[in-house]
């Protein structure tokens, strides 16, 4: 069966001197009802990947012409602006990281929900209003009808994100892209929002592309996980495989950064070093300056994403497992 969404050879660059290759050859698929998590530190290209799918890249950014985002048999990246708008918000909807700044401060919750409905469907004002109330109830906002008249600043961060989710769900999209939906929220609220997303996805049967820097966040939701580093996917496998037997040293490091109950916390801090500048990726494997196992080959030669029994991985250790430092 053909996947619902297929991203092939996605490259997004930002003009500059030198140009920034934020997303540099990304491939993945998303099936109906499935949840794919894209995980990585900030600066690795997750958000730009998500925005590229809907063509939401602003100047000086540019999606390279050979990139393909295939949805329902058409390449979204070659669509006319008008056609693409029919997909945005209706077939593929998005929830952003900062609900406080992603909602328009001068428009009411009602306007911001109903304008999406009215952009994609022929629906009367009263019907749209009723639907907006239903949506707010769906995302568990108490006194939904009264909240319609509220402005974003009158709501808490968690409530704002619920409104964002209600907006995204308004046209019953086939794909929901959630870009760090809980990062800006308090820990307890985070859990509630994740729970809500999981429940709604099951109920509405939509596919979800969940983007996070935190493997802990995606653990309960993701069917498959793609780990990104340096604008590329460096490991892709089922969630179970990633958590049980991570192959790439970067994935291992990310896992170690997640606090877990079943083992003593050895190192809570992030991985040593930082994501290199996207304008100047290092030669060879892009992770080698931070990798404990790196040897000469990693410094000079760039590994490809290679299929293995457990999943795809982009690491020379698959060729030379004995190089692994114990």
């Amino acid at each position, binding site marked *: 069966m053909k996947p619902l969404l297929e991203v092939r050879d996605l490259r997004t660059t930002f003009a500059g001197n030198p140009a920034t290759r934020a997303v540099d050859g990304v491939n993945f698929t998303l099936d109906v009802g499935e949840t794919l998590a894209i995980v990585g530190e900030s600066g690795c290209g997750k958000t730009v990947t998500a*925005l590229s799918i*809907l063509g*939401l890249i*602003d100047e000086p950014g540019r999606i390279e012409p050979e990139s393909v985002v295939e949805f329902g048999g058409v390449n979204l990246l070659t669509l006319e*602006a008008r056609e693409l*708008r*029919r*997909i*945005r*918000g*209706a077939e593929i*909807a*998005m929830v*952003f990281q*900062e609900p406080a*700044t*992603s*909602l*328009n*401060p*001068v*428009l009411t919750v009602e306007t911001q929900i109903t*304008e*999406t409905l009215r*952009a*994609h469907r022929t629906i009367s004002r009263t019907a749209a209003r009723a639907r907006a109330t239903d949506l707010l109830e769906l995302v568990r906002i108490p006194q939904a009808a009264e909240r319609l008249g509220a*402005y974003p*600043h*009158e709501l808490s961060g968690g409530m704002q994100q619920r409104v*964002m989710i209600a*907006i995204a769900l308004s046209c019953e999209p086939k794909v929901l892209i959630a870009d760090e939906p809980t990062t800006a929220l308090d820990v307890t609220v985070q859990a509630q929002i994740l729970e809500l997303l999981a429940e709604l996805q099951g109920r509405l049967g939509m596919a979800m592309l969940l983007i996070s820097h935190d493997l802990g966040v995606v653990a309960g939701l993701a069917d498959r996980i793609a780990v990104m580093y340096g604008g590329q996917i460096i490991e892709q496998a089922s969630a179970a495989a990633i958590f049980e037997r991570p192959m790439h040293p970067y994935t291992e490091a990310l896992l170690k950064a997640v606090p877990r109950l079943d083992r003593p916390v050895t190192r809570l801090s992030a991985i040593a070093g930082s994501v290199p500048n996207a304008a100047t990726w290092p030669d060879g494997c892009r992770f080698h300056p931070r990798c404990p196992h790196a040897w000469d080959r990693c410094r000079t030669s760039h590994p490809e994403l290679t299929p293995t029994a457990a999943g795809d991985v982009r690491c020379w250790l698959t060729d030379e497992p004995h190089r692994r430092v114990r």
Partner: protein
Amino acid sequence: MHRFVAARLLQAVAIVFLVGTLTFLLLQLAPGDPLSSTSSSLLVPRTVVEQQRRAFGLDRPILEQYVRYLGNLARGDFGYSYREHRPAWHAIRDRLPNTLLLAAAALVVTFGLGIGLGVAQGLRAGSRVDDVLSLVSLTVYSTPVFWLGIVLLLLFGETLRWLPVSGATDPVVYDQLSLLAQAWDRIRHLTLPAVTLGAIGAAATARFQRAAMLDVIRQDFIRTARAKGLAERTVVLRHALRNALLPVITLFGLAFPLLLGGTVLVETVFAWPGMGKLTVDAIHGRDYFVVTGAAVLAAVMVVLGNLLADILYRVLDPRTREAA
């Protein structure tokens, strides 16, 4: 909201009070008393001068003079116009509607043209069109308003003969015209002065609006609006412009002093029978109380303009609106 308006009103009154104090200080500091040069004029009856002297209590201690002066201002008594042989307030009052008409028309040009240009530029920031328009608005902003008036007058009045060059109405036939024709005559007379006065403000507004638009268009909620699949027109008009207009409202308050100062020059260029021309004529005719009266009134208008801008901002920005 009521408390906010009340507080602002009180503040406005305090500022007008300060302005009155300022003019009083200037009158005190000026060489001689304000009646000395008028009293030497042969045209002014002795009794009128004496009566004014008593009214202003110029023979009393300074503190009493001050209180008396403020009291007079509060009652709308700006002093006496020796050129028109009637209270200065009456002389100003007769010209006020013409100035308000001119200022209102100029405001329409200022904000209509300025906001339109600024938005268009903000959406095309960095393009060739934007560069050219930026230079044009900076040039207009650097142009003396009275000279711009003269150039427009030469071009559209004298050379092309499309529009009348002076006055508020046709001096000969206006009274015989039908109501509709009278309105048309007024509009034709108003066009050049209003465009002249409005153009300078439009240049300033365009610069401001462009910056505001650039600032808003980068915000997250614009990306949200696009991700919803809204038409670009809706994104710009409903989401970007509504937010980018907020800072321009403060400009509305700031535009008032510039506008009123401009009326003095533009009214002189086009012989527009308003408060500004009256002020200039009063200076040349040493009719001091008309000058100070007009200045105080101009300040009151500025304060009211600011008050209006403050309230408008409160109403339009839900973040500053109090829970009712």
